[in-house]
């Protein structure tokens, strides 16, 4: 099987969620005999990378313009992809992200007669400002005029309601054109069906991102005296950094509760907190050791926008650490499905968080209950090999 993945940047550069997922997938597909190539923009052109392994590859460079997020069509880039497809005879094109790429590339792939799939790892196919903060979460505003006002305030000065509407209509056409749409969670599937219509139902498939279970072996026991609570993941505003800081302030007087930030610190804290330890960024392979070292009992996942998947939730569950997550997106979906912790109402998170933490402090058995749920849910979480198999099945079905 000869597969071309199209994405917005070099996955080996800054491995965030999408890139990590893709590297995992490539790592799983190559041993199965698949021939993998990547197509992505870089500096002043486009790279076609033929992979023999996630880090072992050959590259060709095509000079061409790098387009803005709101580009629907671009002839130069379309030609580059058309040439690539004609020369290489791929069996399938899988679009992982279309940021910095014209949306019309999907049409190009279809015109060349290659089966085509899109993955929805983010909300870019609803809004080019895909973090959806204005500064509050816009809740997938559907009025194009409202969206245009918001986008103009984000620096897209030329945006009008008509352009927003046109882009959505075009995406709707593209979603009807592709052979399949892959979603990392049920939440994303339901959301895009609600946004673009239930008639697309048959095209949408949910394949959860895989996480390797073998690398996690931790069990952190709650001693009953001090509760160690960790903010897990990058410390950013849309990941709920300000909620965490409010929580820190409100818990200053609670002596037997300690807080940790396990993730890169991109937001500054307003002051020094004696109840906080900043651990900093982590590599996934080291997380178990870090969580054990600090005896973390509860993980906080405080994203104020809905996550499409959340690797950190998988990591917490695999380390048998109950979570407290804001009740949005796939965090809501997966915490409720696996029953591995508390969901915190997003309208007034701090008071609920504090109340629930104090409750755990007073009732050790609740934590044990959720830990048991984490243990029993581990097998339900997707692994890299399971995710790869599901992709292979889908690919085979579409190609044949």
């Amino acid at each position, binding site marked *: 099987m000869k597969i071309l993945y199209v994405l917005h940047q070099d996955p080996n550069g800054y491995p965030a969620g999408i890139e990590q997922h893709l590297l995992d997938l490539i790592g799983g597909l190559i041993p199965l005999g698949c021939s993998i190539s990547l197509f992505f923009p870089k500096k002043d052109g486009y790279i076609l990378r033929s992979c023999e392994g996630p880090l072992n590859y050959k590259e060709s460079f095509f000079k061409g313009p790098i387009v803005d997020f709101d580009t629907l069509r671009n002839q130069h880039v379309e030609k580059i992809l058309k040439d690539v497809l004609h020369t290489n005879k791929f069996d399938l094109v899988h679009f992982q992200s279309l940021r910095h790429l014209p949306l019309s590339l999907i049409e190009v792939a279809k015109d060349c007669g290659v089966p085509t799939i899109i993955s929805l790892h983010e909300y870019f196919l609803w809004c080019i400002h895909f973090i959806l903060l204005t500064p509050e979460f816009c809740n997938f505003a559907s009025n194009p005029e409202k969206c245009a006002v918001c986008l103009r305030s984000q620096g897209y000065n030329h945006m009008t309601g008509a352009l927003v509407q046109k882009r959505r209509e075009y995406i709707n056409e593209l979603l009807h054109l592709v052979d399949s749409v892959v979603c990392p969670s049920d939440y994303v599937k339901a959301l895009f069906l609600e946004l673009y219509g239930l008639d697309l139902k048959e095209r949408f498939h949910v394949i959860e991102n895989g996480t390797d279970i073998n690398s996690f072996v931790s069990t952190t026991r709650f001693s009953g005296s001090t509760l160690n609570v960790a903010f897990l993941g990058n410390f950013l505003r849309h990941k709920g950094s300000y909620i965490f800081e409010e929580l820190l302030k409100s818990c200053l007087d609670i002596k037997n509760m300690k807080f940790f930030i396990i993730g890169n610190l991109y937001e500054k804290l307003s002051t020094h907190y004696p109840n906080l330890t900043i651990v900093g960024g982590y590599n996934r392979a*080291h997380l178990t050791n870090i969580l054990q070292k600090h005896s973390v009992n509860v993980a906080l996942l405080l994203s104020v926008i809905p996550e499409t998947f959340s690797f950190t939730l998988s990591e917490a569950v695999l380390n048998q650490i109950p979570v407290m997550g804001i009740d949005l997106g796939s965090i*809501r979906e997966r915490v409720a499905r696996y*029953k591995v912790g508390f969901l915190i*109402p997003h309208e007034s998170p701090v008071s609920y968080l504090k109340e629930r933490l104090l409750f755990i402090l007073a009732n050790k058995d609740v934590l044990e209950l959720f830990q048991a749920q984490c243990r029993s849910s581990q097998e339900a979480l997707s692994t890299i090999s399971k995710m790869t198999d599901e992709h292979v099945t889908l690919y085979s079905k579409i190609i044949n």
Partner: protein
Amino acid sequence: MNIEADLVPYQVTHVPKGPYLILAPHPDDEVLGMGGTIALARKQNINVHVVCVTNGAKGGDFEVRRKEFLKSLEILNVKNTHFLNLEDRDVVSSTLLEEKLEHLIGSIKPAILFLPSIQEFHPDHRATTLKVWRFLRKWGNFDGKIWLYEITRQSEINKLIDITSVIENKRKAIAAHSSQVFKYSLLDVAIAINKARSYTLERNVEYAEGFYELDRDECLIYPRLLSYIDDFFATKQPLVSVIIRTKDRAVLLKEAIESIIAQTYSRIEIIVVNDGGEDVKDVIEVFEASGKDIKYIHLPKNVGRSRAGNVGLENARGEYVCFLDDDDVFYVNHVETLVEAVKNSGFHVVYSDTERAKYVFVKDEKRQLLEKELYFSQDFSFHQLLLENFIPLNCLLFKKTVIDRAGGFDDSFDLYEDWDLLIRCARICNFYHVKKVTSEYRIWHKSQITQSQGASFQELKAYSHLLEKHKELITPEVIFSYFQLSGSRKGEILRLKNEKERQLETFKKELGQKDSIISDLNVNISLLKSRQLELEHIIQERDRTISSLNGEIQQLLHDKTILISQLNEIKESLGWRYLRSIRNLFNRIAPPNTRRGRFLFLARRTVNVYLDEGIRGVKTRIRYRLKNKKIPNLQAENTAERDWAECGFAQKKPIDIIIPVYNALSELKECLKSIEHYSDIHYNNLILVDDKSPNKDVRKFLNAFKNKNSDKNVIVIFNEKNLGFSASLNKALKYSRNDCIILNSDTLVTPKWIEKLQRAAYSRPLVGTVTPFSNHAFICSFPRPLEYNFLPNEFTLEGFSKALEEVSLFYYPEIPFGSGFCMYIKRKLIENIGYFDSELFGRGYGEDTDFCLRAAKAGYKNILDDATYIYHKGGASFESSKDPEKLRKKNEMIRENLEKLEARYPEYHNMIKKAISDLSFVRDYLVKRLEIEK
């Protein structure tokens, strides 16, 4: 004390797994430090990459060195070499290393990264490791190990590798650097270190190479490296000791320490000397815990300011010393400014300016700033210092040797000890004045922490002691020059005063002009804002109208299609065709749009109504026609969306509460009472559909209820004939244009029920229906499913509902179908799948399950609101408990409808089992938290 085994390994380590990435600052460092290990690794076919960081040009011709490097590595069988070509001794200022490293690590994916030991002497060796460390810390994507290797000296190690078998290879590889080995005896040095490293190992190990492996956590935090970095920077930044003398002012002391910790200058140690006051250990511990360099000395009794100061000086390790009173603060750049001044001026004592701030205590230790002014700010004059203390101690930075030479504070002073010290220091060297405010000198009022009145007896006594001590220095010349200086200062002050007054006048004028501009602008802004609000309101109104009209158009088009198809059916029917001649005859007798035609139409309609509804139907229609009544518009007036986030669990948009009514008057009254109590009927609509209740009092009550609530959105519909539960619901659903809650008349609602159900309905996409927990709601019954539960004795209904909300997990679990006793239904769902199937399910039971299962089939979700509880009496409309015959009929109907459901959904029973099992966790958790016994 550590034993030897903690400090150096006593056993050798096997050659670790590769690939290796080795960073060599110069073209020979890798072979000198770990040539043996490289040779061993290559023998095991481990992939080794060596990166030469600099061109090594300071040690010789770089082309020559490059060739030697390649030749040396060829001897060790290493083929992967990389050159960064940084300038020799310039690693610290280049950025190329970080740029290249990301690519190298990304492409090689090394299991171990080898770097020179941080304890090496050569600056390039240390800079390479530091830069790589900083980069990896920021990057966070390297998951291999880091090993530090020693090159020219023995460093701290925790791994030893036996290289006895390859020592000759290493010798040859080093010898290949012929331009270097003879200059610096490198071969001897390297081999000597390897020999020395065998000291703790078994006899057969003659040579070994030492490494320090940073463990995983050190890879992230690097505490050991951090300590070396302090030493690294120590060469550039001198240590400054800040001494604080304190006594019984813990709150202010904390502020003073915080101001030191906030300094932009990093190499500071803090020494707090408690002069016999209340213990402030808890204040200090907070700072100690966060890793600050702070020393606390608690003197058992009060020894006076001079002695306390000397204790601080005895404990100071710094090259420079500052003093800070426990009620004053430094500004963030204080120490940095003074250290810079020392460096640039060459003076050993420097001082900056301070602001005198007057504070007054208001309440509960809160304070208010009264005024702030520049304090002194005078250039140094020894003569002036003899007669006037014009340099507050907080402003000074001393080279410690100067104070040591001056002999520290004089213990005989308890006041003016600082002045005395300054005079003695000034006899040793001059002071340098930095005209920059870098601290705050505080004066306290009311609570009188520091006295600020005129000179006290103690002050006079101290002053006379000072004069007595230094009297031989106060000569007539000194006094003369002091007064001369004072006179010139007075003149200068007068001139400055006049100038300031002039400036003040100008500022006032400009301020007045700006104020008037600002007020004009404010008026304009408020006008624009109000206009914007108006426009937004108009736009919202327009959008609402359009969407409502669109809905109506859709509905009309839908109705039209149905009517056309019905018309076509009629036209194609045999009856229509057979009666065509009669119709033609009627058309001739009474053509349409003529008086006769209209009369015939009315007569036909009247006959139809009479046949369907009897004479009462005819009378009702005539009455309505005469009164010209219209059916009220069910669309709520205020449909503007409320801000969900700001209102917490507030409603987002209005809903229609639909209650089909059939007898059960007392239950209906209770139900409506609870709705009035817990629902906003001004914002939402309440639609009551009386399904021709045989009990005449129901109609009376409903009319009275409507009249009583004429100011609210209450709509009452009376069916002309009994249609059954499902058909009555459909009738109301057709009137409605909003999301709905269908509700049985024998329920009792609870606080925030609408808000909570709506919140659940919009908690995720594609939710179609929401059902709350209830005592009697099939799979949604709580605590026991499928059963009739009684409210626990210790709870009222309201109390139980609130308690459930408080302990809820807010999971909103998915269920196969809800229960129609109370069900939130989204308008979108109705538009998509239509209404209840009243034809199949007749008078009731099963239609709600069917509706939900149809919703699921269409892609919508049915969910349970695990935070809401509604009481449901059950079966009141059928009055089955009173009449055995009715009970039999009811059971018969339930059985029949169940069979219909099973026929339509063969998985029905399995779905129930699965739902009960899926909900067991939530149910058990809530039961446990509510402490209800099963």
